[in-house]
């Protein structure tokens, strides 16, 4: 009886230890080179690194101005990608895709910051700068893999506004 009891306790303890080791090691699996996986798994093209997921940045222009959104993306490795995303004035035709534009990033992002928006009328005139004081969207707070970040420009020059939202 005592022997069986000791064995049961030992097995339970071993199970807890092994499960603990598994859980401790599991988050570290990201250290495995995804490039290597990209070369051996069927869903990826040979030699091309497989993305971890996607974060989409959409710039949608509902104003009559030509707009360029300047966005700074900071990667987890410290790398920076500066994006300039130009869009044409709003056109009610869904067939014309020029009034919206999209940037995509892999999920290895620390932050996304709208640096500023430049806007001008197609007929010329002054270039307006706005939306330069918004705080960055940060990984783990507003951002995570699979998020959609939208920058929507509304209004009529010189009263233009930008709204940044995360879905």
């Amino acid at each position, binding site marked *: 009886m005592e022997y069986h009891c000791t064995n049961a306790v030992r*097995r339970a303890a*071993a*199970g807890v230890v*092994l*499960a603990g*080791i*598994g*859980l401790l090691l*599991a*988050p*570290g*699996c*990201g250290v*495995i080179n*995804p490039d290597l*996986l*990209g070369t051996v*798994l*069927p*869903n*990826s*093209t040979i*030699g*091309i*690194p*497989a*993305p*971890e*997921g*996607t*974060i*989409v940045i*959409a710039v*949608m222009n*509902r104003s009559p101005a030509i707009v360029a959104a300047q966005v700074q*993306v900071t*990667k987890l*490795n*410290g*790398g920076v*990608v*500066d*994006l300039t995303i130009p869009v044409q004035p709003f056109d009610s035709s*869904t067939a014309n*895709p020029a*009034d919206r534009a*999209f*940037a*995509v*990033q*892999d*999920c*290895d992002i620390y932050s996304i910051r709208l640096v500023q928006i430049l806007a001008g009328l197609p007929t010329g005139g002054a270039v307006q700068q706005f939306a330069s004081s918004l705080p960055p969207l940060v990984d783990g707070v507003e951002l*995570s*893999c*699979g998020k*959609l970040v*939208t920058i*929507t420009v509304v209004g009529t020059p010189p009263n233009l506004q930008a709204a940044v939202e995360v*879905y």
Partner: protein
Amino acid sequence: MKDHVRHYGCLLFAPMVLAPLCGCLNPEFLNSAVGGVYYPTAPGDTPFVMVRVVNETTATLDVPIVWDDGSLPTYSYTVRGLTPEGHDTGTLVQWPVLRIGLGDLDFPNAPLIVANFPDGSSTGVIFGRSALQAGVDYNEGDTIIFQIAADSRSPAYIRVDAGKIDGSSQLETGLSRADPFGRLWSLLAALGF
């Protein structure tokens, strides 16, 4: 002894099987490994084609992504200043899109990709292949990846590789999480774009 192996083997195997299900594994790692089980890596059933540019060189790149829908004008989205640390970025193109390429759709040997090296020199890089064509090289919902890599056998010592993630490979499972493509498509429809 055999009993011990069987027993402890099961104990080891159980966490390995259960860990992904309870979210213990890094989902982004798993996602890249099994191709979109958590987060889609291609637009899938939404009417987009995703185009990604990956910088595997030591240079900072300016990369014009160009496409058309069979009528004028040709659309473009230029990635400027993509550093090796920045590594990758891209754009999402709304379907229908007939041809996709880098630089110039009709002149693939025009050196319109600009590589700025750390020593201050810069060079033009050719796309070097015909523009990718809908129905042949890609379909609605796919992801196209252009990898720009150092290659001493290529002009300018840089070559462009193209790869594809098949949109139909995106798995709809109970594990699926955020889908930015589906959300974007719904949002565009709601806002009248």
